[in-house]
């Protein structure tokens, strides 16, 4: 059937985007594992990663890899500042306040980006040229492979951090049992501070890797952040594997849906998926360590 013909190609792009959503979701999960805070400015980290790389590449004329590296460092710094200036002063505040503060920060970051870099969308050149690999009937751009590779590396890094290093375990401890961690000498605020840095870094990496495929502009952060959060919830809120699985599922579902419904509705798909999962299985596909089984 002719309707099914574009499906394999859409599958590939779905997996690519899915990996990006997974990365963004991992950013959310990292902060949430340390502090039970949802950082609505996460998407802006992604956007800033791409923007900063563009800036360093085109305006400062650094070589590509150096531009990317500087961009990641700058975004990590921004993440630290976000914690120090917004999250830390509000550490005792109630949930709606924290939520609004991160939304305010998201607004500030995206509009400042428009101010500094202009409102036109920016694109970056692909890492390794425009070659397309042919696998059967589908063509896979080398960029997609880079994206998948990056996702895998980040996942590996997070896994090692959380389960093999003392620092990672300290971060987990401060979220699960704040009092106990405090008594053991772990400073919860320091853990959250570091978590912000890590997730800003992850976000910026996602941004740098996706911009060659899909342009970046001052407002693309909001939507990508939301979709990343949805991915993390979909796969199992609070689990790294959940964010990966959720991201891939979301990416694929979103891509495949283009074949069946008008493309304008594409963005709504993520939210429909969200409502479905929150209604039928709020814990997510793989289950969630954060929500107890009673009366959810």
């Amino acid at each position, binding site marked *: 059937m002719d309707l099914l013909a574009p499906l394999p190609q859409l599958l590939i792009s779905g997996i690519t985007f899915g990996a990006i959503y997974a990365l963004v979701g991992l950013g959310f999960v990292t902060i949430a594992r340390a502090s039970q805070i*949802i950082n609505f400015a996460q998407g802006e980290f992604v956007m800033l990663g791409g923007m900063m790389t563009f800036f360093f590449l085109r305006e400062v004329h650094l070589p590509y890899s150096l531009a990317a590296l500087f961009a990641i460092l700058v975004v990590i710094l921004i993440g630290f500042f976000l914690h120090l*200036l*917004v999250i830390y*002063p*509000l550490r005792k*505040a*109630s*949930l*709606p*306040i924290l*939520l*609004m*503060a991160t*939304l*305010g*920060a*998201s*607004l*500030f*970051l995206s*509009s*400042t980006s*428009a*101010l500094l870099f202009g409102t036109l969308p920016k694109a970056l050149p692909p890492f390794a040229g425009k070659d397309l690999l042919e696998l059967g009937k589908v063509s896979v751009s080398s960029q997609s492979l880079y994206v998948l590779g990056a996702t895998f590396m980040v996942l590996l890094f997070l896994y090692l951090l959380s389960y093999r290093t003392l620092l990672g375990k300290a971060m987990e401890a401060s979220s699960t049992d704040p009092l106990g961690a405090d008594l053991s000498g772990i400073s919860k605020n320091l853990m959250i501070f570091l978590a912000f840095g890590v997730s800003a870094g992850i976000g910026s990496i996602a941004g740098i890797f996706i911009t060659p495929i899909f342009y970046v502009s001052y407002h693309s952060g*909001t939507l990508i952040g*939301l979709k990343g*959060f*949805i991915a993390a*919830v979909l796969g199992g809120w609070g689990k790294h594997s959940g964010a990966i699985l959720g991201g891939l599922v979301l990416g694929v579902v979103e891509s495949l849906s283009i074949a069946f419904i*008008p493309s*304008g*509705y594409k*963005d*709504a798909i993520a*939210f*429909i998926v*969200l*409502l479905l999962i*929150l*209604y039928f299985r*709020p814990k997510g596909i793989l289950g969630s360590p954060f929500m107890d089984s009673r009366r959810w």
Partner: protein
Amino acid sequence: MVEQFQKEFRKRDLFYSIALWFLSLIIPDPQLHYRKEYGFRKRDLFYLMTILWLPLIWSDPHFHHLMVLAGIHGILALGLTLFLGYAGQISLGHAAFFGIGSYTTAILTTRYGVPSFFALWASALTASLVAFLIGRPILKLKGYFLALATLGFGEIFLVMVRESSSLTGGVIGIFDIPFFSFAGFIFDTFLKQYYLIWGVLVGLVLFSKNLIRSKMGRAFLAVASSEDGASAVGIDVARIKLGVFIIGAAFAGSAGSLFASVMSTANPETFSLNLSVLIVMMVILGGMGNLYGPIAGAIFLTFLIDGLSRYQEYSLPVYGLILILLLIFFPDGIGTRLRVRLIYLISYLGRKRRREKVEL
């Protein structure tokens, strides 16, 4: 010599005491006082008189325009304060109900010639219906997940409006909505619209105030405080949450209808996530658990945005910055600490004067 000082001090004390008393009349102070004076007191009359006479005293049309907008935001904030400030549930999709109201009125008045008075009620009803339909499943969620679900709903609504151009005019929207008219009287100037909007707002405030001082208001607070405790005294938590949600949606729908009748257009840009965030900010700034505060918050933020707009591309970053600062310094609402701070400030001036006098 000492007596002279004492007389000076007494005069100053008297002056500051009178200033404090006068200020205490007009500045609301929710969390420090016993809330039980739910009857109508002098302060309410003062507010009512201010609302009545203000646009006549200050007849700048731009000011009138802003107050019209502030009134609409006030209705939105009032609906959300019942849901967020009293019942403690977060909604980041409230702008969608505003949009539903706007478009219902727009479609009914431009295509079917329905008079705007009936369109107003129809808009409120439509918004309530939608709230009823999506409320049941969504309100089972708590905290961030409720926020996310309402946000999701808001975004879906936005996309649907943009895509179904035949019904809603797509991205462009609907134009030439007739001004609000009632019994032949057309509200076509800002001044007339001001009285319309604020008249509706006062009516809704009365309704809300009645709700708050009745058992329902206590039920809302109970649900916010402890759902287990609430159900242990026989409160059907799910039904209460749904009820407040619908009321909030109805208010927002009416606000949307009035907005369409005043601005003459309806388009998707007006009810984005930014509006939802704005309304939540109004409630937070006004103070949660407070009825008049969010309306004051609405006036404040409306004027703030207008004031910032002249800085064009700097307006949004500054706005975001101000939001964050307001949240850090006034998490309980601007009014709550304001009185204490004013008292401190005024008494500080008195103390400073006294110190200077002694040092002579």
